[in-house]
């Protein structure tokens, strides 16, 4: 949970630890400097206070360094910490041994020589027992913190140790603050003020470091910031309460020890008083005994004297022993001893005097001044001694009393403090518990929510252990697989659900996953219970415990069967599309796709058509680059309209510029594809340059044909004018010739001789022939120009009609008509009549030499649907060598003398047949007759 991590604010804890470490180093450096320079002021906080021992300062320097580097968390920093701890232990352990064994290795002077001094009865420069104990605790904590991975117990131990050492420091520090009740008492040397302060700093730094990471590592991650704050408050509160209770306990102990000491002192004083009184009494007894003996001479009196003499030494010794802690009093006792000695000796002297010199001398001696003075001075001594002891006693009693009342106040205050602390703690814990309960409810709800989400999410979730066996699986995934939870969890492996290919992939990826801690987007084919398969997309992360061991996987998978199917479909379509494009390309049809006008695809054929390699076409960018510059705007407009859907002409022709610069005609079929994004234009193009060129050629040809036609029409007009002129102007002179010859004959016929009349006759005939020629020519010409009617014409009846019309010419001749059935054709009746007139006239004309003329008219239908009509005669025929001359105007195969005629008839027939879309040809043999064939085209394809 990154949120909680942020709340813990690691850097602040590190900063606290670092500051504490640096402060500790600064203090220890100051103290060491004081010891090395002999400046006692630097070693203690103020004069009169006990200084920090040099070894203590060195240990602080080491542990302060350790505290500074502790936050580093790297292997070298751990090494530094351990080295500092080991060095510290090297000084602490021997000192502890000293304390335990009660011996003295002079450990404190191992590094810096410590002077043999005392301050108020305390030896200076020696490490206190509690100091050593605190260092031991600190060492344990540092060592625990330097371990890379720790057990919870170790951490708890470290926590307790750090709180304890801080508490001890607090006790001593408090002691100084409340007027040093612990200063001079206690079983051992007291901790210096700067030492206790340094321990406070060290403890604060360690606790801060532990907050940094250690203590929190066993807190449930779900704890929110509030719980965390509460936890800290509880820890701090307990620490404080614990310290306070510890202070109270130690103070109570100290107090009772002091009380006992005081009581002992008081009783000692009483004993002393009694003892000293006893001594004086004993002396007096001895004195009295001696006197009594001297006065009475009775040896019985000597008995108390002897007793006193025996006891006095004993009593003096006892007194001296009692005052052994009071050198002053002892001195006094020592001073008293010679007097007592002398007194005892005086008594012995008295005995001796009595024995030698008699009682009088002895009495005299007893009564002497010297004797009296000795006794007096002893009494004075003892009374002085007693006086002083009495003052002592009084002082002690006073002291005892005030200490007692102060202790009561102090204990009361501390007890109240403890009560307050515990009450506060209770409240905090109570609130914490409520809070916790509430958050547990919330957590349970959240957990239920999460569980519901877990099971019913639209994706599969499961967890595998290191062997790949299911530890957890959600309902969705189970429903996919078709198995029940009981069958799967703990019993089946993920592998059991995989296809062959999936198995391979799993075998490869699972070890990697265990190593790297995550995999992403692997595709597996999975088997359902019924044997069908489906595809999933799987991602997983590994859950790792505190010691870095793999716990289980947390895998998510999505059913991507549909997606894969769609992909396959897409793949198929892409293939199809590619194949189509290729086929199209093979056909020579170019394909181009644009996004608006930007070219995004071209096929090979398109490249061929335009002459550009694909890369260059793509580099052109816009499709309009391919269009001739002067047509670009129009094309752009067209394409824009087309893309907008305003025009729908999907086929059009277009001109583009080939890479070589020549123009290429394209036929384009295009469509717009709209599928989101800018519209796409797909166009299939075909190079139609060849066709267009052909079209252009045709157009040119047509134009020239039209011109020719116009020229022809002009020529026809001219011909018409010519014909008109001929018909009007040529005939006039002929008429005049004929007319005036006639008039001449009428006028002067009788005067002209026969020969002259013959000549006039020839002139008339010639003029008439000329008139016929002109008339036939005019008909021929008219046949070519006259508009064609197009109606059904029954050729049989037409032929009969013509034969009938020619009857006057056949008078007196034997003619055998063979009229077959003739078809009905489409055509101009008057023109077709002219055809039959000409053909039948000719047949009649050329059969004239025959006694019986046989003229046959018949027809047949050709395979192609054409009708062929022929006129056959048994006339003079012709030589086929000259057949080509038959249809020429004025061309004749016979002289006018043999057969009259103008030589225009067949030409006219041919012209009429041609105008009907048919044709005419002749077959003949000289002397054996001729056949003229006329072919009429099949109705469907006739009449131009």
């Amino acid at each position: 949970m990154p949120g909680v991590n942020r709340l813990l604010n690691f850097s602040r804890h590190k900063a606290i630890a670092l500051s504490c470490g640096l402060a500790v180093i600064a203090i220890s450096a100051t103290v060491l400097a004081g010891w090395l320079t002999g400046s006692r002021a630097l070693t203690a906080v103020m004069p009169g206070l006990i200084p920090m021992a040099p070894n203590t300062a060195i240990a602080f320097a080491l542990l302060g360094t350790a505290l500074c580097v502790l936050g580093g968390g790297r292997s070298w920093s751990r090494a530094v910490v351990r080295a500092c701890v080991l060095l510290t232990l090297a000084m602490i352990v021997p000192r502890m041994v000293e304390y335990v064994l009660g011996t003295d290795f002079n450990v404190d002077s191992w590094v810096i020589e410590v002077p043999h001094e005392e301050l108020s009865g305390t030896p200076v420069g020696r490490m206190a027992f509690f100091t050593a104990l605190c260092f031991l605790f600190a060492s344990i904590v540092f060592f625990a913190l330097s371990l890379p991975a720790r057990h919870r117990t170790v951490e708890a131990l470290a926590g307790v140790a750090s709180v304890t050492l801080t508490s001890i420091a607090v006790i001593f520090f408090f002691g100084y603050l409340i007027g040093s009740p612990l200063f001079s008492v206690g079983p051992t040397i007291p901790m210096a003020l700067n030492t206790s302060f340094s321990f406070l700093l060290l403890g604060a730094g360690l606790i801060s470091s532990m907050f940094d990471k250690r203590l929190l590592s066993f807190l449930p991650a779900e704890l929110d910031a509030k719980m965390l704050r509460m936890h800290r408050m509880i820890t701090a509160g307990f620490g404080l309460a614990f310290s306070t209770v510890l202070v109270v306990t130690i103070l109570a102990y100290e107090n009772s020890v002091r009380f006992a000491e005081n009581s002992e002192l008081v009783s000692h004083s009483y004993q002393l008083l009694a003892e000293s009184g006893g001594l004086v009494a004993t002396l007096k007894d001895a004195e009295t005994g001696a006197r009594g003996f001297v006065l009475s001479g009775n040896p019985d009196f000597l008995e108390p004297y002897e007793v006193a003499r025996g006891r006095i030494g004993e009593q003096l010794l006892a007194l001296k022993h009692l005052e052994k802690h009071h050198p002053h009093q002892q001195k006094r006792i020592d001073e008293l001893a010679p007097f007592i000695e002398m007194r005892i000796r005086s008594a012995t002297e008295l005995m001796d005097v009595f024995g030698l010199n008699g009682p009088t001398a002895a009495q005299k001696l007893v009564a002497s001044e010297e004797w009296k003075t000795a006794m007096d001075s002893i009494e004075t001594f003892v009374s002085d001694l007693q006086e002083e002891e009495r003052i002592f006693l009084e002082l002690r009693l006073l002291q005892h009393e005030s200490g007692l009342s102060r202790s009561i106040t102090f204990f009361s205050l501390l007890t109240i403090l403890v009560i307050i602390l515990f009450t506060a703690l209770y409240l905090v814990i109570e609130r914490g518990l409520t809070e916790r309960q509430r958050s547990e409810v919330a957590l349970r709800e959240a957990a239920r929510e999460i569980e519901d989400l877990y099971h019913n999410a639209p994706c599969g979730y499961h967890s595998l252990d290191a062997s790949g066996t299911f530890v957890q699986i959600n309902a969705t995934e189970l429903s996919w697989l078709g198995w029940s939870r009981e069958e799967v969890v703990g019993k089946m492996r993920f592998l059991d659900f995989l296809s062959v290919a999936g198995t391979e992939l799993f075998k490869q990826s699972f070890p990697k996953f265990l190593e790297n801690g995550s995999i992403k987007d692997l595709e597996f084919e999975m088997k359902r219970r019924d044997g069908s398969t489906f595809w999933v997309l799987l991602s997983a992360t590994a859950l790792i415990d505190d010691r870095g061991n793999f716990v289980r996987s947390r895998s998510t998978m999505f059913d991507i069967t549909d997606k894969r199917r769609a992909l396959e479909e897409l793949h198929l379509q892409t293939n199809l599309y590619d194949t189509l494009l290729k086929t199209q390309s093979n056909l020579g049809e170019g394909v181009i796709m644009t996004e608006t006008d930007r070219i995004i695809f071209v096929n090979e054929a398109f490249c061929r058509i335009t002459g550009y390699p694909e890369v260059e076409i793509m580099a052109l960018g816009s499709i309009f680059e391919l269009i001739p510059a002067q047509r670009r705007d129009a094309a752009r407009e067209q394409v824009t309209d087309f893309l907008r859907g305003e025009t729908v002409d999907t086929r059009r022709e277009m001109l583009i510029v080939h890479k070589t610069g020549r123009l290429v005609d394209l036929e384009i079929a295009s469509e717009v594809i709209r599928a989101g994004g800018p519209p796409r234009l797909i166009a299939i193009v075909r190079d139609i340059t060849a066709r267009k060129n052909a079209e252009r050629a045709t157009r040119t040809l047509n134009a020239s044909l039209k011109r020719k036609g116009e020229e022809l029409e002009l020529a026809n007009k001219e011909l018409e004018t010519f014909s008109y002129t001929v018909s009007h102007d040529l005939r006039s002179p002929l008429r005049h010739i004929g007319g005036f010859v006639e008039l001449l004959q009428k006028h002067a016929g009788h005067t002209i001789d026969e020969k002259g009349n013959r000549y006039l006759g020839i002139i008339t005939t010639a003029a008439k022939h000329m008139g016929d020629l002109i008339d036939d020519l005019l008909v021929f010409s008219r046949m070519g120009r006259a508009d064609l009617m197009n109606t059904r014409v029954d050729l049989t009846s037409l032929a009969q009609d013509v034969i009938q019309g020619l009857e006057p010419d056949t008078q007196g001749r034997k003619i055998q008509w063979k009229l077959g059935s003739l078809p009905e054709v489409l055509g101009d009746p008057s023109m077709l009549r002219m055809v039959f007139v000409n053909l039948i006239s000719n047949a009649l004309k050329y059969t004239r030499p025959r006694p019986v003329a046989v003229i046959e008219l018949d027809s047949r239908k050709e395979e192609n649907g054409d009708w062929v009509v022929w006129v056959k005669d048994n006339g003079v025929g012709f030589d086929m060598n000259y057949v080509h001359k038959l249809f020429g105007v004025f061309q004749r195969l016979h002289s006018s003398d043999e057969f009259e005629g103008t030589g225009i008839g067949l030409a006219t027939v041919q012209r009429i047949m041609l105008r009907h879309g048919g044709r005419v040809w002749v077959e003949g043999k000289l002397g054996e007759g001729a056949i003229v064939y006329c072919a009429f085209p099949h109705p469907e394809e006739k009449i131009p």
Partner: protein
Amino acid sequence: MNDLKRILLVEDSVRDVELTLAALDEHNLANEVIVARNGAEALDYLFHRSEFADRPRGNPALILLDIKMPKVDGLELLRQIKSDENFKLIPVVMLTSSREERDLIESYRLGVNAYVVKPVDFDKFVKAVSGLGLFWAVINETPPGSVRKRD
């Protein structure tokens, strides 16, 4: 013979005029023939203009028209005659060398009364012209206002 009706012959060719007159003369029809040498002269005659200013009143009973003439040709003259209220009732006969269809059609379209092609053969010519003269000048009843010559 009866009253001969006046005939207006419009012909540019003197020879044709002579031949025509000769043919008409065969049947004594030549006397009341007025010859105009072209369309313009014919109009002058009809409108009493220039040399015909003093001519007797009345319209001719028949107009014989050649087509091809200088100045105003036969078809143009026909058009003017047939579009004039005073003259449109006068029978007009085309007497021409042209067999051309377009002339034929155009003439009938303009309202010609008959169309005769001059035959090359003189006999036929005589027959045709005299026939015409007989029919139009003698047999046919002329519309009112035509001038008759009394013998």
